[in-house]
């Protein structure tokens, strides 16, 4: 081997290694920073009281984030409950039902929706949905409103990834089912959807990740109340909203408690991601060759 080749190979390898290592280092640094900033909270409040405490009164030294945990979960699941059936239906339409020309218009449109900044979704929610939900009761800033806004934000993710998954199903499956005298709907529900299952699950979990992390639009429509929400029409506060709303004026234990909120959020995301990975692996493991 020529010496010059050896040097370029080594140089390339080292560069790639440094880049990869630095991105991992940044991630580790963020985690360490959040944990270090958050841990002092637990000198003042026990972990149990922090997670299961009903009262968040930083001025009284009460740091219970259960209302926010419930707020985040309620909003996320509310959004997914609406977005999953809608999103999968849209993906089926795009992947299999709509004529070619309609797809060519719809697909870029859906991808465009992913790129719209969240503050715009929040604004639309604030101006259109808050007054509409007010008609149902409450002041309009509520879990329901936030779920609706979040649904609109999660939908494009679910649609485009599920669409990809459905289109990746071998054509032979579809033809095989039709050739057996299955109807179009039977072919979709019994062959296409099960075959694309792992991709569809991935789209849902990615959507869930986006929902849990969404901050700006939520602050604008959920009301940010620290009271424990009792109905979908009650205002609430999300974990992310808690940090964003208060970090500007927080200090001391209050500031630590906000970082501790961040730790909880991080755990949420880790749990969600591990669920995805297990589900995906299971799907791939069961029918190893179906991707070939």
């Amino acid at each position, binding site marked *: 081997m020529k010496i010059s080749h050896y040097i370029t190979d080594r140089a390339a390898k080292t560069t790639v290694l440094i880049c990869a290592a630095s991105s991992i280092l940044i991630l580790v640094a963020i985690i360490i920073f959040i944990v270090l900033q958050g841990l002092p909270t637990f000198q003042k409040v026990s972990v149990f009281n922090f997670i299961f405490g009903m009262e968040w009164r930083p001025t009284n030294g009460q740091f219970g984030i259960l209302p926010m945990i419930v707020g985040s979960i309620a909003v996320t699941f509310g959004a997914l409950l609406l977005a999953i059936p809608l999103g999968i239906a849209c993906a089926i339409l795009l992947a299999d039902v709509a*004529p*070619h020309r309609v797809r060519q218009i719809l697909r870029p449109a859906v991808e465009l929706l992913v790129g719209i900044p969240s503050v715009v979704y929040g604004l639309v929610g604030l101006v259109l949905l808050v007054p509409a939900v007010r008609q149902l009761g409450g002041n309009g800033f509520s879990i329901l409103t936030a779920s609706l806004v979040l649904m609109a934000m999660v939908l494009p993710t679910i649609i485009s990834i599920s669409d990809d998954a459905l289109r990746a199903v*071998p054509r*032979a*499956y*579809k*033809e*095989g*089912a*039709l*050739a*057996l*005298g*299955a*109807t179009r709907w*039977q072919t979709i529900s*019994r*062959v296409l959807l*099960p*075959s694309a299952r792992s991709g569809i699950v991935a789209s849902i979990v990615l959507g869930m990740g986006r929902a849990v992390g969404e901050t700006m639009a939520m602050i604008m429509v959920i009301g940010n109340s620290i009271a424990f929400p009792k109905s979908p029409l009650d205002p609430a506060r999300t974990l992310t909203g808690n940090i964003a709303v208060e970090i500007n004026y927080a200090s001391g234990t209050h500031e630590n408690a906000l970082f501790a909120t961040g730790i909880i959020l991080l755990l949420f995301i880790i749990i969600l991601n591990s669920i995805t990975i297990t589900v995906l692996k299971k799907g791939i493991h*069961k*029918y*190893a*060759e*179906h991707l070939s």
Partner: protein
Amino acid sequence: MKINSLPPQPVKQPEAPVCETKLRTENINLFYGKFQALRGVNMEITPCSITAIIGPSGCGKSSLLRLFNRLNDLIPNARVEGKIELDGVNIYERTIDVVELRKRVGMVFQKPNPFPMSIYDNIVFGPKQHGNNNHAELDKIVEKVLRQAALWDEVKDKLQQSALNLSGGQQQRLCIARVLSVEPEVILMDEPCSALDPIATLKIEELMRSLAENYTIVIVTHNMQQAARVSDMAAFMMMAPDRAGELVEYDETSHIFTNPKDKRTEDYITGRFG
């Protein structure tokens, strides 16, 4: 001593009920958009026989086959002129239920395409879609068609395993069994052995011969020996200069291979082109 007490064996006794024509095409033209893929195809296929469609790549063999179960309907811009009759009824009539048609005309594809499910679920897929949910009956169907497809002994202990773990030849026999499960009258086979090794191919061919006692089989094949070995009738197709596929010669297989009437057929089967 000469044995002349036995009457001479007839060469071929028509065993099947003497019905005239199972499938008949009348002046079929097929277009994909502006491109004409088939021109003026006229064919009559007798019941309980094997008809092989042979010819060079791109001559429209598969397109013709896919007309018989209207699978070409899936292709946008595909347009058919002419008539295809199944038992005397034009299957391109507006009143025809395509789902019903595809139950009667099953298809085996070039690449084995078992669904990503268990062997059992693959077989019961068709019957279930047609409303049969009786477990005992489904179990019977599974055993019956797997026996017919000469696969039962190989898979009877692993019916709940994924069909994708079977070998290519087994997968193809599974696909044939799957077609049999909906009790079709006609089975279309689109180069069913092209992805298989010679031993698996031989098994499929034996299977086809035994199935031909009860089913009308139409097979597209690239393999001339296969056509000669397995089929009763053979159709030779070729591309016209404008690339539209035409039926050059359609006759008994023995005639096509030993005494073709058309020069082009002769050139093709003797390997001068294609």
